[in-house]
């Protein structure tokens, strides 16, 4: 292999350029906007809001500190996403180190190329959420575990659990591997104990979201979808996704047939956490979350690359995967769907042409979060609807982040004019659709704000009298 390809600094430089390019482009999408709104609160409110949501608080706490350290504005997307870029570069470096400790010798540059160009890696390096940090912590735990330095591995296992609940699956896997190697479990026991203070909150969160979370019951297709997301990211067109659904399992099966039979550690790393997540989803409630498997992406790449021992095999798979990655990285920057939102464009028809200072009453948490974040000057209220649909924030989180919700009748008493803004999407309950139909009978103006495949957003001006 050429000397330049063996130099990690070169890969880091390319990775940095790819991750910096357009890092601040676009508005935050819903989940990012939620994170941004949360870290803008004072610390106590932030923890209260998170206690009603579905994630632990470590990454939010770091970003809370980052926002105050930079003294910046939370709506400065590029600056806020920057720490995730650094975490992602850290993951590239650690994956390189792990690969360098294994044979064959070209494995490390193969991994470096994968981590640099994988659209999933670029996506999460540029997304204001916890996944880049989560992957870094996982790789750090794996690296120290492989080195036999269990205290450090346990430390990173603990941070993993405080960053994302899938850290529990990875920590359990780590403990299983430690037992398998007949090493002491004590450092990991401390990791588990360190997480204990949050367990009560976790339990409460799981009860809050039960039956009200967007994840659907597990289907074999979800496994393939997950493989696509953690390797190729989100920038695929639907057609490429169909092809990738055959290509990825095919590549994996080839890797399994040609696996290194003496060293099955990495296969274990892939199988145990995914089996646990699958079992929990079947036995208890759906928890299979594709993003939660992102940390396994470098491990997946390693078992695949290790199986490409013959030169012509490397040429065959390398050509297919290389062309696919080049195409998808291109599509990522064109923005087929790279996780950015056009929130500002979405609300423009109302805010720019029709709004004269009236309050907005919203049925959707997504719009409410976006408005609070980008337009705090608009008096926006969450209207009380018949049911909280899946994917929406719990009432605990809403109570921490939003002004007191308002009833439609109360709004009629309180204001002469107000805008009712409704987001129609697949999870909208039927009773809410009926409520909207009834409420909008007294509307004097209707504005269409946006339309997408399975939904639309409209605003109605409600005035007292005709």
């Amino acid at each position, binding site marked *: 292999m050429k000397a330049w390809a063996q130099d990690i600094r070169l890969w880091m430089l390319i990775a940095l350029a790819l991750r910096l390019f357009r890092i601040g482009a676009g508005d935050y999408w819903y989940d990012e906007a939620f994170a941004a709104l949360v870290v803008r609160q004072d610390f106590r409110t932030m923890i209260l809001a998170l206690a009603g949501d579905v994630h632990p608080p470590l990454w939010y706490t770091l970003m809370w500190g980052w926002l105050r350290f930079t003294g910046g504005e939370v709506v400065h997307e590029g600056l806020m996403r920057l720490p995730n870029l650094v975490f992602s570069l850290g993951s590239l470096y650690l994956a390189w180190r792990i690969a360098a400790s294994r044979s064959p010798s070209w494995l490390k540059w193969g991994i470096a190329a994968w981590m640099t160009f994988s659209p999933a890696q670029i996506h999460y390096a540029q997304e204001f959420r916890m996944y880049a940090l989560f992957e870094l912590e996982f790789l750090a735990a794996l690296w120290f575990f492989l080195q036999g330095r269990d205290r450090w591995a346990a430390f990173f296992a603990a941070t993993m659990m405080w960053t994302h609940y899938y850290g529990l699956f990875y920590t359990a896997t780590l403990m299983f591997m430690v037992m398998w190697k007949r090493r002491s479990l004590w450092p990991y026991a401390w990791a588990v104990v360190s997480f204990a203070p949050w367990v009560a909150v976790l339990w409460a969160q799981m009860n809050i979201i039960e039956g009200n979370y967007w994840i659907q019951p597990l289907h074999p297709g979800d496994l393939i979808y997950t493989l696509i997301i953690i390797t190729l990211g989100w920038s695929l067109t639907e057609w490429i996704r169909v092809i990738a659904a055959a290509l990825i399992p095919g590549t994996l*099966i080839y890797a399994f047939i040609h696996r290194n039979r003496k060293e099955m550690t990495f296969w274990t790393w892939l199988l145990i956490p995914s089996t646990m997540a699958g079992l929990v989803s079947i036995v208890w409630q759906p928890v299979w979350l594709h993003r939660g498997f992102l940390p396994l992406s470098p491990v997946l790449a390693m078992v695949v690359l290790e199986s490409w021992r013959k030169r012509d095999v490397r040429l065959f798979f390398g050509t297919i995967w290389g062309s696919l990655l080049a195409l998808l990285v291109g599509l990522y920057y064109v923005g087929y769907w790279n996780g950015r939102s056009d929130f500002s464009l979405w609300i423009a028809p109302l805010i720019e042409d029709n709004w004269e200072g009236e309050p907005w009453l919203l049925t959707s948490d997504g719009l409410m979060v976006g408005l609070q974040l980008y337009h705090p000057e608009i008096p926006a209220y969450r209207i009380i609807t018949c049911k909280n649909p899946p994917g929406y924030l719990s009432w605990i989180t809403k109570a921490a982040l939003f002004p007191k919700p308002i009833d439609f009748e109360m709004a009629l008493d309180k204001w002469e004019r107000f805008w009712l803004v409704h987001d129609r999407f697949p999870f909208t*309950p039927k009773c809410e659709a009926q409520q909207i139909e009834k409420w909008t009978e007294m509307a004097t103006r209707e504005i269409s704000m946006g339309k997408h495949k399975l939904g639309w957003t409209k605003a109605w001006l409600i005035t007292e009298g005709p």
Partner: protein
Amino acid sequence: MVPEYLQFLQRLQERNEVLTLMGLIGVLHPIAYELLPRRMKHVMVIWTIVALIGTILAFWYYGRGL
């Protein structure tokens, strides 16, 4: 749920079915290619034809909803 919900669930179901079918094709291809004994390589030819038909069907099925 509103009518869009049923449409959404149906789409999700279709996506999962197509991904499963394509996944099966992807999984069986290297198995047939790598593990079949040399004298049974004609099975590989038959399998490739089946896989191609499966892929065309998947594209047709998925394409209706796009």
